[in-house]
């Protein structure tokens, strides 16, 4: 009887594993099969033109890069600063745990809510136009917890003996943080960056009302304050409004490749951290 349950359990688990892998393979397979045919040089290097009746996603590729840049440039100093403050300076335990709780809660909020708040705050209250800047600022709120959490975790693994060593040599606190703490927390910061870039790349809901739907090719500075669709938003537009699923699948494939690349690099860095800790 015991043996029977064991076999049953094993079969069920094996089945679950097969279903998961199968599903993943199916998704990747479909997207590649359907998208591959439509990825052309023209698609990747031009913008959509109604006159020529041609479609291009270059603006959306650029918008994605723009918004990653804007978001990271703003979120990194804030996030790293907050993490450093929490781990190295804050002495009020209650405050620290309150802030940790708040940041953890922020991670669980559905992104469409960030979109709504972003729209209210950045476009209506602060008077920004829909565009990369308003979208980027919204994403800052969204990925800030990720950066803070990863940086903090990494800072906590830096042995106190390094800090003591530096202080005992007459180092001031900030000098100590800059020279022996932060450099040793770099991999955690990097992991946070990659995860954040992944989320930014994949985000659509938070950007609908903030970055907008624009498909025109714009320079970086023009895009900041003009409606600009990122790849994910463009996917939605082409599928939903143009009924053009071919382009959507092509975009999906591009996104898939980016995600894959990001995950691989994240895995490599995490691997390196583990090596270092064990060795």
């Amino acid at each position: 009887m015991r043996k029977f349950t064991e076999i049953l359990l094993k079969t069920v688990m094996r089945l679950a594993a097969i279903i998961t892998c199968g599903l993943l393979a199916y998704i990747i397979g479909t997207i590649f099969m359907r998208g591959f045919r439509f990825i052309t040089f023209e698609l990747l290097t031009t913008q959509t033109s109604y006159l020529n009746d041609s479609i291009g996603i270059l603006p959306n590729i650029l918008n994605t890069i723009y918004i990653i840049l804007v978001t990271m440039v703003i979120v990194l100093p804030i996030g790293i600063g907050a993490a450093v403050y929490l781990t190295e300076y804050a002495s009020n335990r209650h405050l620290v745990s309150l802030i940790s709780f708040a940041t953890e809660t922020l991670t669980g909020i559905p992104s469409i809510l960030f979109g709504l708040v972003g729209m209210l705050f950045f476009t209506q209250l602060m008077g920004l136009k829909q565009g990369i800047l308003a979208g980027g600022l919204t994403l800052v709120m969204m990925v800030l917890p990720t950066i803070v959490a990863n940086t903090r975790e990494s800072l906590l693994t830096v042995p106190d003996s390094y800090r003591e060593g530096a202080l005992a040599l007459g180092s001031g606190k900030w000098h100590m943080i800059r020279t022996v703490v932060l450099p040793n927390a770099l991999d955690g910061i990097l992991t946070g960056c990659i995860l954040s870039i992944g989320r930014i790349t994949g985000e659509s809901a938070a950007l609908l009302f903030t970055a907008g739907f624009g498909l025109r090719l714009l320079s970086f500075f023009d895009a900041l304050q003009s409606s600009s669709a990122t790849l994910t938003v463009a996917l939605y537009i082409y599928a939903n409004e143009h009924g053009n699923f071919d382009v959507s699948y092509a975009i999906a494939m591009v996104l898939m490749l980016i995600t894959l690349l990001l995950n691989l690099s994240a895995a490599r860095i995490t691997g390196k951290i583990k090596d270092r800790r064990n060795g």
Partner: protein
Amino acid sequence: MATIIETKKLNLWYGDNQALYGIDSELQDKEITALIGPSGCGKSTFLKTLNRMNDLVDSCRIEGTVMFNGKNIYGDKINVTELRTRIGMVFQKPNPFPMSIYDNIAYGPRLHGVKGRKKLDEIVERSLRQAAIWSETKDCLKKSALGMSGGQQQRICIARALAVEPEVLLMDEPTSALDPISTGKIEELALELKKKYSIIIVTHNMQQASRISDKTAFFLLGKLIEFGDTEQIFNNPQDRRTDDYISGRFG
């Protein structure tokens, strides 16, 4: 012999727990003073009050004075950073930074504004020589200090402390994590260094204390029980508790 550090009625609390009780002591220049006593009696705590490393412990509160060269280091107008360059510290567990040997040694001098390759090269070589680790490191200065053995790492840490030219060197059980040969090297080194520096060393090893120190201080439960010439403490202790401890009857 001149007094370099003098403590007067030094009391210390961690929160509500008193860890040091009215310590009066005079530590002499260019001597090795050994701090001995059972675990938890406050040796490390006492050592850390001398370069204000206890400032890092939030709950720590201190009363009394610690005079260093005639100036109270807990008084106003004391620059803790400067104090810590004049009173260096070597920790129980070797703690080189995860950088090259060269950068480890150059850390302190750079911090204090020494620039220029040549000057730094000089300091690095001098410090490593002083710490008796030059021959083992001169061909691999660019390699990570973490790749060295425990004993070598500890001597690198000593060199790192010496690179800022302190007057006093505090050592908290510097050999407890090391093998006998490395221990011997560090003891020999301490004897050499006392020509130029005052050394205060915490040790659990009675032989070590008697081998290298000029003065010995015996702590028990946060009190300084007996303090005197090492010879006298080991051969003719005045307090029965000192006698019990050094002859191994407790602790």
